């Protein structure tokens, strides 16, 4: 199939075929990062701006490496230090950046819908690197890539997503992506951190981690945002860690070959114990490695590079 989209705003807007095309394309690019010379000329002459209104280490670095390995020119704007603090609107900031003839803007913002706002008003391609609690499409894509790498398929797998579902854009994007590709998704977490009507997204909901562990092929743990403690969602971190944290003892009843994932950064001792994070089931570092390949694929497809990825790679 041929790629036709100009933006990557969320996974809701992508068909199953389009998601699979990204995963396939990433496969070809993964090898590039293992070479001595980690660079292909696919996006030579293109300018990519990373406009991050929220702090990020992993995602920003991953995007930047992806762009550089495709030979694009990149600029990093950590928007804490831009005019937004002087009262300029997001759209104004982005319009000014675009006026410098930028081809693609990668944006992260604490407010849901900011990538859509930019896509509606700008000519440049927009990639969503995380907006509010809504969407983090490249994270979900790299998670799916990692699962597929391990199991050879996604369809029919039981995936458990555990933690603060309410505030998680990673959870929302994974729910949408994984269900599109035919996985059975169960979300698990304390009732105060579970959105009402979550079942309407085509998932099952459980408050019992043991039960979810038993049936899952793959367990995706989410970071508990400790700063949200002030909002009375939980009695204590201690209780959360005991009831919803994953440790080796709880994994005793898991299926053989269960895979443990985490989008990072992890709170060790809260959502998972160190022995699990570093243990045999963990694919947390594979996720990070695959992130670069996925982002290369996304940038490559959106900027309409002519040569097939396979030839370049």
């Amino acid at each position: 199939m041929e790629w036709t989209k100009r933006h990557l705003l969320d996974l809701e807007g992508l068909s199953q075929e389009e998601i699979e095309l990204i995963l396939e394309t990433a496969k070809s690019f993964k090898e590039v990062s293992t070479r001595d010379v980690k660079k292909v000329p696919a996006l030579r002459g293109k300018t990519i701006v990373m406009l991050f209104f929220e702090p990020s280490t992993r995602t920003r670095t991953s995007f930047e490496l992806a762009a550089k390995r495709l030979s694009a020119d990149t600029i990093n704007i950590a928007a804490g230090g831009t005019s937004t603090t002087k009262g300029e609107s997001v759209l104004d900031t982005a319009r000014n950046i675009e006026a410098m003839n930028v081809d693609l803007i990668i944006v992260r913002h604490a407010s849901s819908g900011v990538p859509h706002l930019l896509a509606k008003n700008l000519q440049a391609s927009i990639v969503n690197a995380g907006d509010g609690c809504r969407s983090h499409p490249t994270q979900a894509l790299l998670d799916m890539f990692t699962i597929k790498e391990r199991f050879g398929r996604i369809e029919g797998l039981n995936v458990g997503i555990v933690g603060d579902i309410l505030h998680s854009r990673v959870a929302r994007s994974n729910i949408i992506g994984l269900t599109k590709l035919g996985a059975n998704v169960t979300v698990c977490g304390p009732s105060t951190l579970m959105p009402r009507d979550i079942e309407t997204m085509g998932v099952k909901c459980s408050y019992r981690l043991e039960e979810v562990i038993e049936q899952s092929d793959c367990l995706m743990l989410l970071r508990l945002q400790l700063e949200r403690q002030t909002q009375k969602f939980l009695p204590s971190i201690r209780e959360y860690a005991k009831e919803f944290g994953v440790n080796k003892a709880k994994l005793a009843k898991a299926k053989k070959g269960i895979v443990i994932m985490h989008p990072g950064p992890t709170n060790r001792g809260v959502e998972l114990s160190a022995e699990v994070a570093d243990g045999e089931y963990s694919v947390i570092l594979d996720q990070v490695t695959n992130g670069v390949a996925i982002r290369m694929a996304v940038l490559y497809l959106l900027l309409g590079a002519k040569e097939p990825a396979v030839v370049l790679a």
Partner: protein
Amino acid sequence: MGLVIKNAIVVNADKIASKPQDILLDKGKIAKIGGSFDGKSHEVIDAAGKLVFPGLIDMHVHFREPGREDKETIETGSRAAAKGGFTTVLCMPNTTPVIDNCMIVESIIEEARRVGLCNVIPIGAITRGQKDDELVDMFELKRAGCVALSDDGKSVVNSHLMRRAMEYSKMVGLLLIEHCQDPLLSCGGVMNEGINSMRLGLKGDPGVSESVIVGRDIEMAQYLDARVHLAHMSLKRSVELIRFAKSQGIKVTAEACPHHFTLTDDAVKHFDTHAKVNPPLRTKEDIEAIKMALKDGTIDCIVTDHAPHTAEEKELDFDHAPFGMIGLETSVGLTITELVEQRILTWPQMAEKMSQKSAEILGLASKGWIKEGMDADVTIIDPNEAWEVRKDDIASKSQNTPFIGRQLKGKVVTTILAGKVVYSTTPGVITSGVK
């Protein structure tokens, strides 16, 4: 020299006239209904085929003056009101500074008189500076011209203070209007809490934040035998509580806005900030409940909550864009299209909801009816004219409405204030200046 409206089919809250009559307006009053008048000694408007309503009253608008004249002024707001068919509006006190003393009340009334396109009655705050801490000087505000008080934009959260406000305002003879929303429950929500907010990753405001205050105020009104008017009801549960309260004889009245009987939170799906409003757009079920409540009288009147904002502000991301939409110029069209055409309201019920009942609630004794001796405030509506809401046609200073492009039926053709035409679509009719 008076003004004669010829061939008027009069619509009052109790009935629609069975045959056309001529009406003489003179010296600011409705002088005579029926009989024939000399066309040479009076100015004449022909209302053949049109409906003649008592001047419409909107008891909930934001005119932003003083403080945010970049969004709206008393002058531009009055133009929008006249164009929308409103002869009396009540402007909410969340201005900068807040309308909480007689100086500001008097200055608004004076400016509105100078403009002369609409009666503008300022609503005073309930608490000084709308700070939920101490009561305003109510006698002073009443003498300056207020008929109602509200901390609109937020609830009086302190229940004890609300109790004192109800007791004191009852003595003074001022209506209390409550914006029902418990801030600890709405907790920064930017849209209705539901399936859409979950999918959009936007913070939801649960409807229960409204209904708990509705319930609290009803209980307090019952206990104190006091009156309370509940602003912009958006929720099925609120409606059910009010219906129950009314059945018990509790002195509660309520209003609803056209957007709350027209749009669901689906309008927010593409992050359209023009659909960001407080209270938020709810669900289909809530819309149906609001409509039924208007029909059976549980909700007394239709208001707009006209809330102008600049284009720059509405261009912000959804979390940061301000709440509110303009409404004065679409209220009649939406009410006719969504309620009258759909056989939810009759024409007399429309006159009741958009004029008579508001006048009654506010104690405006000379308004709300087309009757001899009443004020000569008249709104003439063409019930059949179909039109499209267009940005360029908006008289308000701001254009923040999700209804741009919407097809409506029923249009205001002439607005008459104190016997003078302030707005007319008829070529050749001399008006006071609204295009």
